[in-house]
């Protein structure tokens, strides 16, 4: 995945960049499934590798696919990136290690979901139960985000001819 990311950074032909990022998404999906996040993996595969790639390709056919030479001010971004690495490494060292079953995230809220979701909601897929019921309001928000994007794209790309008709 790291290799792909570097590829994305270096490659200047945008079509190959899109393909690379599609592969990247697939890898990410695989990793997610390996981490037991099947729902997330499935979504990432369909959204990251599918929808995003289609969108990007669609946009590229409208905008042209070659990237111009980058500017010569690479040090500032690198510096910024380094600062963030520092902060994150610093921060994550304070976190529980990988797959530690006693980590706080397994102790506080999650057990109730796992133990009682079936009896409380009747849905064995706990992800669905949490998504649609316990944190259903987040999902309403999420749907609204999708709606916002859809309406936003309509607002931005609606053709002038139709716009003129709407004014009458």
């Amino acid at each position, binding site marked *: 995945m790291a290799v792909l990311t570097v590829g994305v950074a270096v490659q200047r032909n945008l079509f190959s960049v899109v393909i690379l990022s599609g592969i990247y998404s697939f890898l990410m999906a695989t990793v997610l499934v390996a981490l037991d996040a099947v729902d997330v993996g499935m979504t990432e595969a369909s959204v990251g590798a599918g929808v995003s790639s289609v969108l990007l390709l669609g946009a590229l056919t409208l905008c042209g696919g070659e990237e111009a030479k980058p500017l010569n001010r690479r040090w500032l971004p690198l510096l910024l990136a380094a600062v963030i690495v520092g902060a994150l490494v610093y921060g994550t060292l304070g976190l529980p290690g990988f797959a530690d079953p006693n980590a706080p995230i397994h102790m506080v809220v999650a057990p109730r979901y796992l133990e009682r979701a079936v009896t*409380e909601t*009747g849905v064995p*897929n706990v992800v669905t139960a949490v998504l649609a019921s316990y944190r259903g309001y987040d999902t*309403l928000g999420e749907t609204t985000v*999708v*709606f916002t994007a859809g309406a936003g794209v*309509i607002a931005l790309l609606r053709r002038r001819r139709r716009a003129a008709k709407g004014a009458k």
Partner: protein
Amino acid sequence: MKGFLVLRIVAKMLIPYILVFALYVQFHGDYSPGGGFQAGVIAAAAIMLYGLIFGLPSARRLVPDAVVETMVGLGVLIYAGVGLVGLALGGNYLDYFVLARDPVAGQLRGIFWVEIGVAITVSGVMLKIFYMFAGRRRRDDTR
């Protein structure tokens, strides 16, 4: 791409299955991975495939713009509406317990409708965005 007979036949055979798969993902989401969002994406993908192979105008005939735009709004309305029904029946907002006499059945009913709302909005938005992007290119070509 309209000339490729094989493509057209394969697509015709494939699209119904994709749609059925979308329905499976939608309604089997309680037991296996998946749910409204994924189902919406898959269903939209089926129509997009149709549009890619048979041309945008025929996809637009199949699922007209007006329908798509209504879908975009309708899904959110269904979702938010479920919440309001919960309110009307004496619960808190988005309370599914009150939707049926048995609380668990109420939960199931609530989740069912909510997921349908998600699926409708998601597939509507995806399709709409596809139409928008694809429609733009068409206009540029004719210039």
